[in-house]
């Protein structure tokens, strides 16, 4: 009986600790959401205002109409979707080859080198890109940003998908091929549907990486027509006396699409992440 009480106490402590960790994660996010609805009176009150007295959408209007964030949102979306499609189109067949032909000569080295590119500093790429993109007229274009971001997301996409392919038995394709399917046919008709969870989680990773980058956008764009959301947010801090509720509303713009995608796809995503991490 005493032992049971002791277990219940440990369980209660575990749950309390988990709530503390969750608070550490969520309170800052909720705080910026709350700030985005604040008025000047809330800022001037001198007290912590958990929930604004008279919540206002003023900052969202400012951010969308005055600060052009709707345009930045469209730019970020175009770029991130482009990156996701391109990155997956290249990574999918490659990851398949890595998982099915690992025994072939040179395959292990090649796969390691993809991993190595993951550890390359992204900030270095801005230097050659800045020069090259100006000569081939990719500077300050959506396409230029897409190409630049694919360099960041490609290794991650290959690695995530590789983890998923490893979990799919070769017997599946073997059976299809015995029944007269070509390897390509087996890949498209049999393997692809099975790897959809992997594709979803690799897509989310690529999308979120392209969505959140700052340094490449900072170096490779100059006009508002191509500016992305992270760049828009970071530019607030270049001015003296920015208005925090506006900055907060811009941040909410940046966070919401990713969180919505994440919670929709979480079932595949968390599993994919642990596979990539542990098996990788």
């Amino acid at each position, binding site marked *: 009986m005493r032992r049971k009480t002791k277990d219940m106490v440990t*369980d209660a402590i*575990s749950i309390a600790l*988990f709530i503390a*960790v*969750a608070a550490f*994660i969520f309170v*800052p*996010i909720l*705080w*910026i959401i709350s700030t985005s609805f604040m008025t000047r009176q809330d*800022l001037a009150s001198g007290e*912590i*205002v958990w929930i604004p007295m008279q919540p206002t959408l003023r900052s969202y209007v400012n951010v969308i109409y005055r600060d052009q964030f709707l345009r930045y949102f469209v730019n970020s979306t175009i770029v991130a979707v482009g990156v996701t499609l391109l990155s997956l189109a290249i990574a999918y*067949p*490659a990851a398949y080859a890595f*998982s099915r*032909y*690992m*025994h072939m000569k040179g395959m292990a080295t090649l796969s*390691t080198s*993809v991993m190595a*590119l993951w*550890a*390359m*500093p992204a900030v*270095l790429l*801005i*230097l*050659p890109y*800045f020069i*090259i993109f100006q000569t081939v007229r990719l500077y300050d274009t959506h396409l230029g940003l897409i190409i630049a971001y694919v*360099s960041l997301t*490609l290794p991650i996409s290959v690695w995530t998908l590789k983890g998923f392919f490893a979990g799919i*038995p*070769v*017997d599946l394709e*073997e059976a299809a091929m015995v029944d007269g399917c070509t390897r390509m046919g087996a890949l498209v008709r049999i393997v692809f549907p099975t790897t959809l969870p992997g594709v979803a989680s690799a897509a989310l990773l690529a999308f*979120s990486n392209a*969505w*959140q980058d700052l*340094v490449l956008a*900072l*170096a490779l764009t100059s006009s508002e027509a191509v500016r992305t*959301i992270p760049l828009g*947010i*970071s530019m607030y801090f270049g001015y003296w006396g920015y208005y*925090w509720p506006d*900055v907060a509303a811009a*941040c909410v713009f*940046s966070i919401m699409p*990713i*969180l919505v995608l994440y*919670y929709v796809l*979480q079932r595949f*995503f*968390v599993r994919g*992440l642990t596979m990539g*991490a*542990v098996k*990788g």
Partner: protein
Amino acid sequence: MAAEEYSGEILRVDLTNRKLERFTVPEEIPRSSMGGIDSLLRSMPFLRSGKGARRNMTPFLFLLPLIVVEFSIIIFPLFTILRMSFQSYFLLEPQKVGTWVGLQNYWRVFVDNLNAPLTFLSLRNSIFWSFANTTFRFVLGMAVAVLLNRSIFERLKLTGLTRVLILTSWITPGVAGMTIWRLVYQSTNLGLLNGILVRLRILSGPVAWLENPSVIWLSCIVASAWKGFPYVAIALTAAMATISRHYYDSAAVDGATGFRKFWHITFPLILPVAIPVYVMELMWTFNNFLQIYVLTRGGPADSTMVLPIQVFKYAFEFDELGMASALGAFMLVVALASIYLQQRYLRY
């Protein structure tokens, strides 16, 4: 459960997910590798060799786009940096751009008294920041991983939910995430942290978290850990979940309790996963531009300047892409050396 009565390899059919898995009954911890498919393939000659050259071309065709794209947008540009570091790229003198200047860029970055002190300050900061930051987020991540593996969450069927919630801050976009912390660290009434600490009478007055030199690194580390620790926690939770309960049961019979169980069973058994994750996080932090840039821009007075921001500064504030490339070449060498060392000594 029955699997644990055998040892060696078995094939396990997962009926719900329609999966066939090769399953090694762990003698210690399963090595993180994909050897399963590899050896399965080897046992199926018709998949391996095929009828002549046509079939052997297939993997090459699958890999061709990756190889072409990687070479043209990553490897070639990275080597361009080496060339640029020996050329003049002072953008305000366009007629001279591209002329060879020998080691001048390196001299100005690493020797010249005008810039060298700042270069070495950012190098020192980068090393300190990478190790302190990675270690902090690792300790936090490991503690949370232990917490997530408590049986209570499994009994309440909350394992999935806890993992999804924990990863929320990791998936939050970086600029927005760090801006959130700039807000939380404010000295006005928007500064949640000061507000709470003052109200609890831990502080007598607000602290300028991102300006005061004695706490500025701590502030950056906490903000960065907020974004980074969930990944560590989830990776380590997955590793811990593979440890057989039998170890803990027999340790309990021997009278071991909480911390001793962790230190003598959990910790050594998750090392094969933990070390590569630590090294990756270390390299990633060393290369990361965004977090410090958004939090402090390397200030105040260059006190939090790190190498990636310094490269950016040389390039776009000094308009000296040559100097930036010289420092970039140094970072490239560091990255290649760490990858080499990791592959050579830390392969699990």
